């Protein structure tokens, strides 16, 4: 049996375990609010209020996942009326990196999957409307497509602008006509 790299983190308890997640100010201002004292409370990260402000967390360029042979399963929600919440894989802490992310964008109609090959990016819509509730998102990165699902319902695969190389777990909040806020409940990644 082959054992591949696996990562699982439940955002639960008094705080985030040091040495695993690296809080990153991707652009502009923002803040890490920490674990939410609430039923099913997760880790809250908030961007500043100016458009394009982005605040997130990743594994600080320790990239153990294969952009064309890995899975991400995560549960998160957008908490803010405006703004964007994203989670998935990225190659660097930059907001123009090769990446694959679930997108919960207050300005859109449906939840989306974004992929970026390092030069160009694009999104594909799901058939699930945007909202402020937790959902379970899953993506399977392949060499020809990204298969993905929301709450265990398969969505149309994405075949363009696929990332390559090594990836790290990442999530962030982004301002859009007001601050963005993400609340992370679970994050899992593994190579196939």
């Amino acid at each position: 049996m082959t054992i591949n790299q696996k990562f699982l983190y439940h955002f639960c308890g008094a705080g985030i375990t040091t040495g695993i997640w690296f809080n990153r100010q991707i652009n502009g201002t923002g803040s890490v609010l920490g674990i939410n004292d609430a039923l099913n409370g997760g880790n809250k990260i908030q961007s500043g209020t100016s458009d394009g402000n982005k605040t997130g967390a990743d594994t600080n360029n320790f990239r153990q996942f294969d952009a064309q042979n890995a899975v991400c399963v995560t549960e998160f929600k957008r908490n803010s009326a405006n703004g964007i919440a994203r989670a998935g894989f990225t190659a660097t802490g930059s907001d123009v990196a090769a990446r694959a992310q679930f997108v919960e964008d207050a300005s859109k109609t449906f939840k989306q999957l974004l992929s970026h090959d390092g030069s160009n990016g694009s999104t594909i819509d799901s058939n699930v409307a945007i909202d402020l509730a937790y959902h379970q998102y899953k993506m399977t990165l392949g060499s020809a497509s990204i298969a993905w699902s929301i709450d265990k319902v398969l969505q149309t695969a994405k075949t363009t602008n696929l990332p390559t190389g090594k990836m790290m777990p990442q999530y962030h909040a982004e301002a859009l006509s007001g601050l963005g806020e993400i609340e992370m409940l679970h994050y899992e990644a593994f190579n196939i």
Partner: protein
Amino acid sequence: MSSILEKLHPDVASIGKSHFFDDMSAKKIRDWWSVVQKAGSGSSGALDGIDNGIFLTTGPTVNAEVAMDFGDKRPFNKNGCKFISKLRFDNPTIATAFTGFTEQVSTAPAGSAGNDYVGLRMRTSDTFWNTAVRSGGASAVITDTAVFRNTSPFDLEITLGASSSETRINRGISTVNAGALPTVNLQAFLWIITSNASAKTVEMMQCEAFNT
């Protein structure tokens, strides 16, 4: 390779619920826990031995107490959650070790495990493990199990439902309590308090808690 998260949350109804797991291995108590020396002296950390876990130790004074919880972050549903743990207590006849779900223990006054809790404990003067449930600051409801206290490791399980709580020790049903449920949402905890002037240690080897 398959997803652990998908197995933990196998259907849509289980999505979006908190799940906590600590294997209590490695060199320290993880930052998931807030450890507080509530009275007297004491220490905490990880133990170096086969099948050992983390420990809380009191100092050698009467009513010395140490507790750990989620620092008053309460993700667990008072009407639907489960706690699973393995625990060992080095001297259950002259001190109290208590674990399960609470509203507040590390920040509660000395000698208190909070106004709302449901837990399993080994306590001075009791013959058996017992279940203690407190609801909204009312007097705790104490129910003896039929499991004798000793210094062996015990597997513990607590299930909170909408109208009752159930505890199991070493996988056998120990108590079922109707009514007197906690009135607020909860956090996991471990607490030790002395009743004479000698140091005591409680050890926890794993802890899992989740909403159902």
